[in-house]
């Protein structure tokens, strides 16, 4: 590494030099510094002017840049286009992967071999057999702005390879999910679409798909309109029904003989009138009734039984409607059609309608469905429990402890499996016989900003979930296994947002190469008991994992988690002058934990838990956690102004080393060094705690692990201290590098990259300020989301921050983010890109030159330099096997895998990666994709006479090809 710090010389010079204030520094720094400041002041005007001129600059720049006076920068082009500032830096942004599964019923293909899921920006096709992504069909959902989202998707009834997708702005796509065709040519209904359902109806001799659309516009009341394909191209359909109030759900059944829509606390049943004899023209004429429901309807399902008349026509025999309420009741209206008017009667009459009430759910019933035989109701909601109601016996069966709130339940057409969509961005298929998952599809489970509030919010609750993202997503990459991304997540979206702040006690291990969640580890106290809600109706708050760091060898993982009791629970402790906030602080629980990570990253084991890593009179927040890139050593900095380093040693009990099950010696982590930072207000620590201003801090190891750079202090007064890791001595102190809170500090070669309200690149060796930028003034929450990532490979770093907007108090839906990639040598960004979603995490792609970005739509973007391929999985279809899979022939998994193996092998060579990593990568690439090396490894271990038994070889080969058991 060219920029190795010469330890002796540098430390010596650092020691020698007493650093004065910045203005004494070299002219370069001075110039930059002054320019940057002046820039900041002068540049604001033209920026404002431009906005005033009406130029559509929705995404204003994050950074006011200065190189040589002409300031303008990065009015970045349209989404997806890359901004390349310099010829040598060809940074590319990949297409996004993943996304958030929407609250739309998953769709089984007719043969139940595929599952089509609707994501926020795409349709994704998975095989039910091995949970593989077959095809990702991106949908240009965001067209005009931020308000567009998909409201409904349903399989066509007449051509099962087509999916109808409805967008709220009136676009309707007819997409062939086996080819992906049709995403570019939507039909347009110039109305807001609230919900949509598909039925096949007979028009004379022809059976057509008919879209039943619940639509509205600003000026007209909500209506149900039926469209066939012809109507869609004209944009005009047959009006079926008009509403007084605003409906929310629409379902239909029995080839459109029954249409049910719910609106508030009524539901409307439409029954198709019989066609009059002798009239050929298809008349979609319904008789609609509005019936009161004791609750607000949150979910709806219809079950119909048909009978065949003597003439061969089918007639409705019985219609059972089930409605899930926003307050937890399920109301079953059986045989509703018969109770409404029989046709031909003059006076409209109805028999008394007595719904049955099933009440178990505490909160809104997110989904309720009939079983195929009509003997069960299946429902789910916030409780994370799948409830199976035996209609006959009122017996209730539960499938508890699912990993998230249940959003959607779909019973397959054969009735043999349930597809359950959970709000932790996963979908599973459960067999109805054994209630065991057969398919599991899990995306990134980090917090997202959804399109509409949860169904639980239909009624007022004792608490309100937060609808913002206030913290960056905590991530870490396993250095031993770079495709494994560790994300701190909660128990599903709603549980995470529950108690005021995010509660993320779990760590999801997400494999970016196979693009699916591998496993989930519990890193802090969770709440695995029956209820996720207290007796008062408030959610139970779980701890938040705030820091995560791998040791350089990937064997150890350090984590910090924090918990403080919710405000409502601490009222009883408030005595005297104490405020609720102080009481909560006193009862805060902060743990530093060290985990041993198994070689494949699938298992982590808690080795040591430190209860008071940093404390004064009370527990102190751990502001930063860094790991030594060269050895198994971690360092933490706390709000008490102390840096501690942590190393492991062999565990001893009564002087004898403790060994584990396999005889290996066990290790324990202890604090090896304690370095108090020279903080101006250090003596304040002994004085009243409440008077102390909030401090911020961060720390980083130098690349060779010889120095810890620790930044700490009160806002704008933070100093950087260089600590010799050998001796623990403070070698140097650098002042005036930060404006506002310290956000991040990173070391890259001889440079320190510091992020506060300024971005400062400082050469420690030459004691020069290389360049510095001011971040534009923005709101406090936005500042908190500014992030910095450094890639040692490409000597570059990336800064991500929300697009500045001082009015934006909460990071809600619609917040945009900007990403800038710098090379360490160059003060001009090499990539500036605005994301239409908030960036929640940015981190370097280990072993490659790029960065990976996670956004608030649960999408993963890869930023790579040059032609380098991001180490991310692409759908099978893109790999060229999708077509094979789509054919009716049953593709043997062997065929599929071998085909893949070729493809991926080519890929890897294209990728021009170094070989060692290649092997590693392959290992983690999707299992069906097996590199030939792996096979040779098995077969060429020894001469044939010394080969292991054939059985062993078989299991080894099978182990390569068979997909790993899916863990949930």
């Amino acid at each position, binding site marked *: 590494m060219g920029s190795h710090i010469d330890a002796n010389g540098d430390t010596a010079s650092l020691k020698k030099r007493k650093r004065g204030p910045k203005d004494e520094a070299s002219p370069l720094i001075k110039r930059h510094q002054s320019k940057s400041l002046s820039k900041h002041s002068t540049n604001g005007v033209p920026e404002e002017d431009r906005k005033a001129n009406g130029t559509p600059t929705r995404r204003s720049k994050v950074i006011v840049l200065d190189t040589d006076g002409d300031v303008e920068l990065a009015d970045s082009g349209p989404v997806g286009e890359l901004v390349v500032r310099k010829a040598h830096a060809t940074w590319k942004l990949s297409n996004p992967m993943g996304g958030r599964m929407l609250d739309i019923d998953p769709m089984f293909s007719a043969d139940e071999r595929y599952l089509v899921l609707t994501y926020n920006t795409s349709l994704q096709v998975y095989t039910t057999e091995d949970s593989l992504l077959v095809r990702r069909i991106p949908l240009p959902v965001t067209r005009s702005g931020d308000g567009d989202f998909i409201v409904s998707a349903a399989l066509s009834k007449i051509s099962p390879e087509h999916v109808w997708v409805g967008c709220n702005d009136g676009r309707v796509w007819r997409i062939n999910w086996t080819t992906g065709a049709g995403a570019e040519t939507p039909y347009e209904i110039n109305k807001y679409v609230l919900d949509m359902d598909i039925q096949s109806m007979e028009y004379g001799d022809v059976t057509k798909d008919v879209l039943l659309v619940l639509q509205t516009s600003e000026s007209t009341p909500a209506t149900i309109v039926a469209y066939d394909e012809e109507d869609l191209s004209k944009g005009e359909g047959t009006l079926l029904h008009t509403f007084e109030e605003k409906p929310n759900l629409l379902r239909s059944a029995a080839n459109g003989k029954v249409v049910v829509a719910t609106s508030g606390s009524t539901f409307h049943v439409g029954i198709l009138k019989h066609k009059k004899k002798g009239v050929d023209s298809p008349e979609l004429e319904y008789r609609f009734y509005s019936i*009161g429901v004791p609750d607000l309807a949150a979910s709806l399902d219809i079950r119909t039984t048909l009978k065949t008349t003597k003439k061969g026509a089918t007639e409705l025999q019985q219609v059972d409607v089930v409605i899930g309420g926003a307050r937890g009741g399920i109301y079953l209206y059986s045989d509703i059609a018969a109770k409404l008017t029989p046709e031909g009667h003059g006076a409209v009459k109805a*028999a008394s309608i007595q719904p049955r009430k099933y009440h178990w759910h505490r909160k809104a019933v997110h989904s309720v469905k009939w079983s195929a035989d009509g003997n069960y109701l299946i429902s789910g909601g916030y409780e994370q429990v799948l409830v199976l109601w035996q209609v*006959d016996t*009122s017996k*209730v069966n539960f499938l508890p402890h699912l990993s998230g709130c249940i959003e959607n339940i779909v019973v397959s057409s054969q009735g043999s499996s349930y597809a359950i969509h959970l709000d932790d961005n996963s979908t599973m298929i459960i067999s109805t016989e054994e209630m065991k998952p057969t398919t599991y599809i899990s995306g990134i489970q980090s917090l997202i900003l959804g399109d509409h509030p949860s169904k639980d919010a239909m009624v007022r609750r004792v608490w309100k979930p937060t609808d913002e993202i206030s913290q960056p997503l905590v991530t870490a990459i396993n250095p031993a296994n770079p495709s494994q991304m560790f994300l701190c997540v909660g128990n599903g979206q709603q549980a995470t947002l529950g108690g005021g702040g995010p509660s993320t006690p779990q760590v999801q291990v997400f494999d970016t190469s196979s693009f699916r969640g591998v496993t989930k580890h519990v890193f802090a106290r969770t709440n695995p008991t029956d209820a996720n809600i207290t007796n008062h109706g408030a959610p139970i708050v779980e701890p938040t994992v705030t820091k995560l760091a791998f040791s350089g060898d990937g064997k150890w993982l350090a984590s910090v988690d924090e918990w403080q009791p919710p405000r409502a629970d601490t009222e009883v402790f408030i005595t005297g002058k104490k405020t609720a906030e102080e009481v909560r602080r006193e009862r805060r629980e902060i743990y530093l934990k060290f985990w041993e990570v198994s070689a494949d990253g699938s298992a982590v084991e808690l080795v040591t838990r430190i209860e008071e890593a940093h404390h004064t009179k009370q527990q102190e927040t751990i502001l930063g956690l860094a790991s030594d890139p060269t050895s198994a050593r971690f360092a933490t900095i706390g709000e008490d102004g102390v840096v501690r380093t942590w190393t492991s040693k062999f565990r001893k009990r009564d002087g004898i080393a403790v060994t584990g099950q396999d005889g290996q010696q066990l290790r324990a982590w202890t604090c090896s060094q304690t370095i108090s930072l020279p903080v101006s207000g250090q003596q304040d620590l002994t004085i009243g705690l409440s008077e102390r201003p909030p401090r911020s801090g961060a720390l980083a190891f130098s690349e060779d692990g010889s120095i810890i750079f620790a930044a700490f202090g009160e806002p704008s007064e933070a100093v950087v201290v260089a600590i010799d890791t050998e001796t623990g001595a403070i070698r140097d102190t650098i002042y005036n590098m930060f404006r506002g809170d310290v956000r991040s500090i990173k070391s890259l070669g001889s440079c320190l990259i510091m992020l506060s309200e300024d971005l400062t690149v400082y050469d420690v060796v030459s004691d020069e300020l290389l360049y510095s930028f001011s971040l534009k003034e923005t709101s406090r929450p936005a500042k908190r989301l500014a992030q910095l990532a450094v890639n040692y490979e490409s000597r570059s770093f990336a800064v991500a921050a929300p697009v500045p907007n001082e009015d934006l108090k909460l990071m809600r839906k619609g917040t945009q983010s900007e990403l800038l990639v710098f090379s360490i040598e160059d003060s001009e960004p090499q990539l500036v890109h605005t994301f239409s979603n908030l960036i929640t995490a940015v981190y370097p792609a280990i072993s490659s030159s790029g960065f990976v970005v996670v956004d608030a739509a649960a999408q993963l973007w890869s930023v790579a330099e040059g032609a380098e391929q991001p180490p991310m999985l692409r759908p099978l279809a893109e790999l060229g096997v999708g077509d094979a899979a789509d054919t009716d022939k049953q593709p043997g998994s062997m065929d599929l895998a071998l085909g893949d193996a070729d493809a991926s092998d080519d890929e890897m060579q294209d990728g021009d990666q170094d070989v060692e990593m290649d092997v590693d990568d392959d290992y983690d690439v999707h299992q069906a994709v097996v590199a030939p090396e792996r096979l040779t490894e098995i077969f060429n271990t020894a001469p044939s006479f010394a080969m292991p038994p054939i059985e062993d070889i078989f299991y080894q080969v099978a182990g390569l090809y068979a997909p790993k058991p899916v863990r949930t």
Partner: protein
Amino acid sequence: MDIHRCRFVPYPASAINAVAFSHSSLPTTLASRPQLLKHVQVRLAIGRANGDIEIWNPLNGLWHQELIIPGGKSRSVDGLVWITDADEETSNGKTILGKSRLFSIGYTSAVTEWDLEKAKPKTYASGQHGEIWCLGAQPPVLGKNGVVLPSARKLVAGTVDGNLVLYSTEDDDLKFVKSLIRTPSKNTKMICIAFQTRNVVVVGCSNSNIGVYDIRNGTLLRQMSLGAGVPGAPKSIIAWSVKCLPRGDIVSGDSTGHVCIWDGKTYTQAQRIQSHTQDVLCLAVNADGTQIVSGGMDRRTVLYEPRAGHAGRWSKVFHRRYHAHDVKAMASFEGKGMSVVVSGGPDTSPVVYPFRTAGKENHRVLSHLPQQTNLQSAPKARLVISWWGNEIRIWHLLHPARRLLDGDTTGTDIRKNRKLIAQIQVQGESNITSAAISADGTLLLASTATEVKAFQLHYDGTSQIHIRKVEVTGASHGATKVEISPDSHWAFWVEEGVKIMIARVITTESETGLVHTISAPRKLPRIRRVVPKHLALGGLGSYDRKVSQVAFSPDSKMLSVADLAGYIDSWVLRAPGELQNGTEDKSDTSSSDSSENSLDESEEEAAERWYPNPKGKLLPKLDTAPVVLTFSPGHNEEDGDYTLIAITASKDLFVFNPLRGALSDWSRRNPSSKLPEQFRLSRDPIKGVVWQGPRAWVYGHSFLTMLDLSQDLPEPSDTGRDGAKKGTKRKRHDHNAGAGGKINKEHSLVPQQIKAATAPDSNEYMDVDMDDQKSVGASSAYEDDDDDTDGGELQRLRDDATTNGEDARKEASKPKTWNTYQYRPILGIVPLASKPPKEKKKKNGEAKQETVDTLPPLEVALVERPTWDLDLPARYLADGEWER
């Protein structure tokens, strides 16, 4: 009015163990004969753990508690069964309605038949067997069209030692016949019983079995097993309740919380519904077998209905928690426009909820407090007595409320303002039926079912009370009601419910104070009322002639009693010769003369005597049973007549002038429809009246209303609560099934309104008639609205005339009515007297309206018995439950 709000007066309400209706449903044949239907006397009997049996009249949803038969020492009522005989046709074409007889069991080996007329047990029967745990009545023989044919009906009792025994009820008697079945194992307890057909009885046992027996020969037809108990619970399941559906299917509820439906032909389990989390204790089914209700230890009341499209399958519709404790017993009644289930349990309040209109109409909690207040006061002595069981408590309220309020007594603690001065335990088996105290607090009268006791109290307000028993002669039958005249000269009691006895109280002064002696009583004749023979013989017989209300005029010169049928009798005290004697007078005089020979008393007796009120016959019969009968203080200025107020269970208020034998002018001007709305529309029964000059403070279970009878009532506003225009016809709110009113739209499970869209392109709707198929069928011929017209146009004309003629100035100045719901639930309100404060008199001059100033001060003791004060037994809490 100054109110002592008293919660210290205890009234230990007792748990409900049994409920039974005399008719579970009325036969459809009656629907065509509304006249006959009208005379069917449907009663609800409620048995309590302290041995009380209460008789309630459903009265179209008014739920009037007519009678309490007090229990006795260590008695309880654990099962109640009515037997209603077949109707009989007489030769002249009249129908004699079947007689209703009430039987009870009480965890002894005896069956008791009750005489409702006399409010005491009629006969006992017992056999050589263990305690009876369940009792069932053999269904009658049904002829064509479900007509009940005259047939002997047996009672079948299941015992704790596994016996099934037969009792015959023939010839108006109760006899042990034989022991039918003896279960070999002694551990088998017979818990519940139901008849599938006339000869097949289904018995739920404690050993996980339900046995089906033929009672003709005692063979076990089939044993239906409930299976093994759930893990962690006792091995055997207890079948707590069985019921049979009309088509023969059997429903059972057991200790695992399951309700099972058994096929009535094959005796196999057809369905098992897990609807309770704890034991299912009781069941009710409706007459046509389309609804089942179950109640259990988890407080739930669950409704089941057949599943549409699944023949023979049932499913739970919903459950509610109406009770604060276990739901222990329930019974259903359909007919007379009602369709209700009544349930009870340890929380002591019966709950009525609609059966067929379940989900549409509200339930209603009836009061756990008795209708007739067991509270009396001696106003002059500031004593309040209350009684229950065999105990009377006497309280002294020391200081007037005014003094406490004004705070002119320093250091008067409210807690110290009361003093329990005596607790009297009445000896003997039976409990107190009624008690009375004289106004000066020196004489206390108490009656049980066997005797009338009198006590002389001597209490000077500070020292120990002295109680001395006073001999009462000629009261060997006991009494159902006692009363002492306001001047303490007469003791009055009602023997066997109908015989009115009055005795002279002679008071002499001695050195120790007043000494009371009670002379031999005389029976007062009641006016003979002609009741058609076919009515007198059928139903409950002359039960409704039971005297329920007694009133003495303030000057003790007039006595008036009313019975449940609504007849009012009155007597006047006259010196001999002062009044032309009635016809029956002679015999009565002679009998009393012969029995009583005391010299000094005969003179007195000769001086004054009770004669029937000559105009008494003119007093009309009230529609429904009176709940209040009282004389207003003061005389009518014009003719010296008394003012007798009668309030009926149906909230009609009548004011009579008994000497004239006519409705008073005020009552003519102010029909019941003019009573204030809160008063009329409240479903609470009225319990009593306290007088403050012309003001009547009428109170019920939860309200207190003032009516000023010296003024005309205000015209009811034309826009009533539901905006409907009111005529003179008494406002009848929407007829419902007999429990609460309609549930609000937002809380109703059943949609209250269904609308049909008129056209696809308009958002106009038209309301859909909800054709209530499940309306109460043929027996819904509830058509006595005609009775409610209190007058037509003439009435309105008269109303108009009076309001126009009345002085408007007067109306504006003085409140005519006033209403509060502040106090609840009210056990009773009794007046107390205190010396009028002096300021009152001073004001006299300033006040211009004499009426205002002549209002005497009123001080009362108001006793509340909130349900949360009830000492309920601990409830079994299941997993995950906690007491909120």
